[in-house]
C-alpha cells in the first residue's frame, strides 16, 4: 500500500538536521526528493503552504514538518487552493498549495482554473501514485497532468528527484513572469522518496526581466492620445499586477483623461478620484457606459477586453479606435483589432510615457463627461438602510478604514460591492473575476488575513456562495484570523433569480433554498463567532462591535430576494442597452425579509 514507508524514505528521515540546513560550505548531501522539494521551496522564500495531506504526498508532509515553513490545514483541497490564492493576490508573490493524488488533485482544479483566468501566481504541488503504477488505474490515480494542462500556465509531471532542481525554480519563474499564472507540479511518490546526491542547489526562480520598451511606439501612442478629442483609459488587473498604480495615476492626471476600470482594476484609481469613471460593463454605472459610447479613443492598459466588460463587441465604443497595451501577445487582436498595440509591461510603458509626454487639459471633454456623470449617476437605491444591499455595504465601509482588505464570493453581493465599495488602493479588492467561482471568498479571505495580518479582512458573501466552501470556517477559527464574513442573505441564488426574473419571464427555477441555513450557528459550530443583525435592537451598534472586535466573525444580514443589481446589460447585449429597473413584484415588495 502506498501509505507504508519505504526503505528509501526511512533513510531520508534518518539524515541529521544539521546536514540539511548547512548551506555555508558546498558539500554533497543525500536528500530525498521530498526534502529537496521543501528545501527548494524554502529558498524561494515560501513561508506558508496551504494544503491537505493524503497517501500520495505523505513524504512531502513528512519533510515539511522539519521545515520552518508553516502549514495551513484546509478542510478541502479547493479551500487550500483559494487560501494560497488569497496570499498570492495580496502579496503578488507566488504561493504554494499541496494536495494528494486523485480526489485531492481534482478538488484543486477549480482553484487552479480560477488562478489561470485571473492571472494569479499559484504553484499547485500534487502527489501522484508511484511511476510504476501510473496507467494502472491505481488507487487514487488520476491523470493530473492531463487535467491541469488546459487550466494552468504550464504543468509538469516530475520523473526523477533530480528534475526537481530544474522544475521548482522554473515553476516559480513561469508563475511570476510576463502575465502571471498558475503552474502545476505533479510528483509521483517514488520521486518524493528517491534519494539523490545534491551538491549545489539552483538559484531561486524569479520573474524574468521584462522586454525593453522602445521610445517610438510609446511616442506614437502619446501622439494618438493627444490627437484624440474624447479619449478614455480602460485600466485593468494588469496595472495592479505590474505595480503600476502610481505611474497610471500620473499618466491619467497629466494627460487629463478619464478612466474606466475593469472589475479586476478596481482600486487603481480611488473611487472618488475626479478622473475615475468607476467600473464599466454589465453592471457598470450608466454614465460609465455612456461615456464609452461617445469616446473616440479607448486606451486599454493591462486589460483583456472580457465580455462582461465589453458587452456585445461589435457595439462596444462604436465611435472609438483602440490602443492596447498588454504583456501577453496573445491578447492582442483576440477580441478586437487595435490601431496600435504595445506588447510590454504596462508599468514600463507608462513610466516611459510619463517622461516623454507634455501635460494637457481636455477641458471640453471633461465637461461633457462630468455632465454625463451628473445626468446618469449610479443609483445606489437603499444606501441608507442597513438591511438593503447598498446600505449594508456602505455601513461596513463607514465602520472600517481604508486599511481593510475586501474580498467577495460570486453573485449579486459581489456586483453590489464592486459597484459601491469605496476602494482606494490596488490589492485592496480581491475577487474571482474570470472564472466567477462561488466559494472563493471565505478561503481567499483566510489567505489574505494570513498574508496581511495587520489588515482587517472583510469577505462579503451570499448564502449561496458561502455554502460552497463553508467548511473553511474551522480553518479561520483555528488560526484566529481577524476576518469578518458578511452574508447578504436572501436565501436564494440571487443573481440566477435576477436573470430568471428579467430574461425568463419570472419563471423561477431552482433558485430558492427550501431549507434555510442558520449561518451564525454554523459558524459557532466551527469555532467562530456568529451573529445575525436582525436579532439586535440596535443592529448598527452590533455591526460596529462585531467589526471592531478582533478575530473571525460571521455577520448575517437578511435582505430581500427581490433586490436586484442594476444597471444590468443582458448577456450578449450592447452596453448601451442597460436595464435600470424592474417593477417591484406586487406579491413580494422590496424590503428586508426575516
Amino acid at each position, binding site marked *: 500500500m502506498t501509505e507504508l514507508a519505504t526503505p528509501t524514505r526511512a533513510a531520508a528521515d534518518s539524515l541529521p538536521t544539521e546536514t540539511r540546513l548547512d548551506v555555508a560550505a558546498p558539500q554533497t548531501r543525500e536528500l530525498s526528493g521530498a526534502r529537496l522539494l521543501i528545501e527548494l521551496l524554502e529558498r524561494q522564500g515560501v513561508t506558508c503552504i496551504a494544503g491537505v495531506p493524503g497517501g500520495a504526498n505523505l513524504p512531502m508532509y513528512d519533510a515539511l514538518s522539519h521545515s520552518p515553513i508553516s502549514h495551513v490545514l484546509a478542510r478541502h483541497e479547493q479551500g487550500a487552493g483559494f487560501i494560497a490564492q488569497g496570499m498570492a493576490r495580496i502579496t503578488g508573490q507566488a504561493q504554494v498549495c499541496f494536495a494528494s493524488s486523485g480526489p485531492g488533485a481534482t478538488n484543486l482544479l477549480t482553484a487552479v482554473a480560477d488562478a489561470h483566468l485571473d492571472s494569479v501566481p499559484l504553484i499547485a504541488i500534487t502527489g501522484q501514485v508511484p511511476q510504476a503504477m501510473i496507467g494502472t488505474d491505481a488507487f487514487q490515480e488520476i491523470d493530473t497532468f492531463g487535467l491541469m*494542462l*488546459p487550466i494552468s500556465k504550464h504543468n509538469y509531471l516530475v520523473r526523477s528527484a533530480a528534475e526537481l532542481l530544474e522544475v521548482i525554480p522554473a515553476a516559480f519563474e513561469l508563475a511570476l513572469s510576463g502575465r502571471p499564472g498558475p503552474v502545476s507540479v505533479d510528483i509521483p511518490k517514488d520521486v518524493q522518496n528517491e534519494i539523490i546526491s545534491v551538491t549545489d542547489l539552483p538559484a531561486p526562480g524569479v520573474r524574468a526581466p521584462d522586454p525593453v520598451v522602445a521610445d517610438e511606439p510609446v511616442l506614437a501612442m502619446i501622439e494618438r492620445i493627444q490627437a484624440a478629442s474624447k479619449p478614455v483609459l480602460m485600466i485593468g488587473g494588469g496595472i495592479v499586477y505590474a505595480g503600476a498604480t502610481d505611474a497610471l495615476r500620473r499618466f491619467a492626471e497629466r494627460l487629463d483623461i478619464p478612466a474606466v476600470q475593469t472589475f479586476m482594476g478596481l482600486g487603481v484609481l480611488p473611487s472618488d478620484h475626479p478622473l475615475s469613471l468607476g467600473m464599466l460593463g454589465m453592471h457598470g454605472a450608466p454614465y460609465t457606459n455612456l461615456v464609452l459610447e461617445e469616446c473616440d479613443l479607448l486606451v486599454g492598459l493591462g486589460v483583456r477586453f472580457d465580455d462582461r466588460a465589453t458587452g456585445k463587441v461589435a457595439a462596444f465604443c462604436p465611435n472609438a479606435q483602440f490602443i492596447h497595451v498588454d504583456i501577453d*501577445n*496573445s491578447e492582442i487582436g483576440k477580441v478586437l483589432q487595435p490601431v496600435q498595440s504595445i506588447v510590454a509591461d504596462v508599468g514600463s510603458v507608462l513610466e516611459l510615457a510619463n517622461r516623454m509626454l507634455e501635460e494637457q487639459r481636455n477641458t471640453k471633454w471633461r465637461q461633457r463627461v462630468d455632465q454625463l456623470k451628473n445626468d446618469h449617476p449610479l443609483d445606489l437605491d437603499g444606501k441608507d438602510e442597513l438591511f438593503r444591499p447598498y446600505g449594508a455595504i456602505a455601513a461596513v465601509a463607514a465602520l472600517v478604514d481604508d486599511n481593510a482588505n475586501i474580498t467577495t464570493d460570486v453573485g449579486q453581493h459581489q456586483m453590489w460591492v464592486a459597484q459601491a465599495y469605496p476602494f482606494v488602493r490596488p490589492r485592496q479588492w480581491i475577487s474571482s473575476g474570470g472564472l466567477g467561482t462561488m466559494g472563493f471568498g471565505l478561503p481567499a479571505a483566510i489567505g489574505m488575513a494570513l498574508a496581511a495580518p495587520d489588515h482587517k479582512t472583510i469577505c462579503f458573501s451570499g448564502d449561496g456562495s458561502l455554502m460552497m466552501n463553508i467548511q473553511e470556517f474551522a480553518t479561520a477559527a483555528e488560526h484566529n484570523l481577524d476576518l469578518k464574513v458578511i452574508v447578504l442573505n436572501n436565501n436564494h441564488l440571487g443573481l440566477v433569480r435576477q436573470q430568471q426574473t428579467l430574461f425568463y419571464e419570472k419563471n423561477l427555477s431552482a433558485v430558492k433554498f427550501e431549507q434555510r441555513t442558520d449561518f451564525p450557528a454554523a459558524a459557532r459550530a466551527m469555532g467562530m463567532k456568529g451573529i445575525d443583525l436582525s436579532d439586535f435592537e440596535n443592529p448598527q451598534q452590533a455591526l460596529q462591535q462585531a467589526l471592531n472586535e478582533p478575530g473571525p466573525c460571521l455577520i448575517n444580514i437578511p435582505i430581500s430576494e427581490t433586490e436586484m443589481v442594476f444597471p444590468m446589460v443582458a448577456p450578449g447585449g450592447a452596453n448601451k442597452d442597460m436595464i435600470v429597473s424592474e417593477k417591484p413584484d406586487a406579491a413580494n415588495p422590496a424590503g428586508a425579509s426575516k
Partner: protein
Amino acid sequence: MSVANPAILKLTVRNHPGVMSHVCGLFARRAYNLEGIMVRPVRDNKQLSRMWLLVNEEERLQQLIRQTEKLVDVICVEPHAMEGSAFEATQEYFV
C-alpha cells in the same frame, strides 16, 4: 489534401514529454482541426523537436499562432509553404 485553404506551420519545440499534448490540446480545445501532424527530434540537436502542422487557414489562425507561441515548450512557430514541407514529401504515405 482535404483542406480547403491549407496552411502549414513549422514549429521548433523542446523535445520534452507532454509537448505534443500541449500543442495538439491547444488546437483541439479551440475546435480548430489539425489536418496533419508530423513530429520528430531535430537531427543534430536531441533537445529539440521539429513539429509540422497542417491546418485550414482561417481568420483566427493568427490568434492561435500567438497562443501556440505562448506555450513554454514551444520555441518558435513559422508559417511555411507546402513546397519543401514534410507534408509535400510524404503525400504518398497517406493514400
